[in-house]
């Protein structure tokens, strides 16, 4: 759905600054049918200003559709193209331990108020949906390899963790770093993140 503007296209795009008028014009063609003079008139009457393109219009009547693709939003939205081999969706992703054990699937992501990803919720264990537990694990404990996502925790560590529930303090199973490892008391969203770059209030 992104509009990706390559250099060639951009040229077309800017030359078609008049794109709104061009669109009206092509619609008019579509409505007016085969009579080119009527079309020209309608078009000029609706766009009274500097519409030189309309003069050539009658010659183009055969392929009015060609005008339409050049009518995206006026100023191009910044966008970039990512190779789908470099990025991937995480929701529903199967996740494994280092030893290759099945650790369930990622079902949700928790971010703090700055938008930093803090934890992933994994749906762990069970059979056919019976007896599975939702556990929050630190985002830094997950490594996304091209073929599989790997969690640097063992099944034995994950299974005993308190279950993740909406509206309750969240216990995030962490990598070894202390701040995230034992937060059963409070949820501390603020303090430990990455003060290096932004260095907030203190």
């Amino acid at each position, binding site marked *: 759905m992104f509009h990706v503007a390559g250099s060639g296209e951009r040229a077309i795009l800017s030359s078609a600054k008049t794109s709104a008028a061009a669109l009206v014009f092509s619609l008019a063609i579509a409505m007016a049918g085969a009579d080119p003079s009527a079309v020209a008139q309608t078009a000029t009457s609706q766009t009274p200003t500097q519409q030189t393109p309309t003069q050539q219009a009658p010659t183009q009547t055969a392929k009015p559709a060609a005008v339409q693709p050049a009518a995206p939003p006026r100023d191009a939205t910044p966008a970039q193209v990512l190779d789908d081999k470099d990025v991937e969706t995480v929701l529903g992703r199967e996740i494994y331990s280092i030893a290759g054990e099945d650790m369930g699937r990622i079902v949700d992501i928790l971010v703090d108020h700055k938008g930093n990803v803090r934890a992933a919720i994994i749906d762990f*264990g*069970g059979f056919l949906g019976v007896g599975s537990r939702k556990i929050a694990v630190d985002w830094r404990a997950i490594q996304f390899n091209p073929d599989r996502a790997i969690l640097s925790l063992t099944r034995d560590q994950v299974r005993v963790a308190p279950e993740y529930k909406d509206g309750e303090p969240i216990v995030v199973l962490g990598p070894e770093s202390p701040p995230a490892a034992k937060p059963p008391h409070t949820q501390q969203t603020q303090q430990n993140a990455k003060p290096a770059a932004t260095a907030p209030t203190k």
Partner: protein
Amino acid sequence: MLFMETKTNAPRPSRRSLAGLDWFIFFLADVQTGFGPFVAVYLTAARWTQQDIGFILSVTGLVSLIGRMPGGALVDAARSERNAAAIAVVCIGLSALTFAALPAFAPVLLASVLSSGANCVLAPAIGAISLGLVGHAMIGPRLGRNARFASLGTGFAAAGMGITGYFFSSRSVFIVTALLLVPTLIALSQIRATEVDPVRAHAGVASPDPPDHGLLRLALNPPLLAFAACNALFQLANAAMLPLMGSIMTMRSANWATVLIAACIIVPQLVVAALSPWVGRQADRWGRRPLLLLGFGALPLRCLLFAYTPDPTLVVFFQILDGISAAALGVLVPLVIADIARDTGRFNLAQGAVGTAVGVGASISTSFAGYVSDHSGSQTAFLDLAAVATFGFLFVLVAMPETRPRQSTGSESA
């Protein structure tokens, strides 16, 4: 009165019809298992958010709650139970295909509503076809057989789905489910329509000249109300047991939990398959009450065992009690309803009413037990469930009359 179903024109269903019903129930149970808790697993794998999954599950639960009585009434009104069942089965098959092919919000929502609505028709339709085929005199053993094939189907499907989901994908489970539509319909077509007597299937002639006389009589029928309440209490105690225990198993044992939970699902099905024909026969000999008490009595015992078990492995054995309860209730719920609704012509509506009570109990159960378990620990939760179960048992003891028709005169009307 004057509903003459005497020995002279006792129904003589063909073997083919009876075998058709057996296998219809078997395959249908397979199909229905696919729409259980597994839906959440599948949608998770299809990158759904938990909120959307929760919404779909709530809608499904709501439809199957409010749909039971209209579903029953529909079957009572239907001229052919067989066709009603066939349409419902096709709806479920289409839903399964939709799940497999288009796991997007709108199609899945539609498919969930469709399949749970179809289930509301199917549950009473199976009872109705059974009663229509064999009549009141032989319904006990027949329901025993129904329960056997249903639990074989469920056990088979759970095992099969576990294997399919493990080796292939969770999507393939729904494709297999949709394919099972074919043998289900073939089995259904083996039941000869002419042998399913619609009058028998509705337990008498519906609504004679004073309209809905039977309906009123049924609605105010004390045994039916008591029975619905008993079943609501049973499910209130029962429905949360396995999910709660499953979660504990996952917590206690890392590597065996999945196998243990699978065993906990399959063991009761095997027990039901083994026991229920016997229950169906004994219900005619001993009467309904002793077996009801057996089924309701096994539940508090199981709750207590769950609360005090030292080792989750033992839970697999305790699930034998679940099988005993399920065998007793699986046969006796439709049987007692058939007893009570006799000659009202509203057998299926009555089934829907009790089904609603069951659904209410089951849906409260999980949230209730989850809440207690979060705040006071799982042992307290199991003890609370045991208290509810004991209350249900006492309720049966005090409030449920024996509903077996007097045997000596065979099948006479009240």
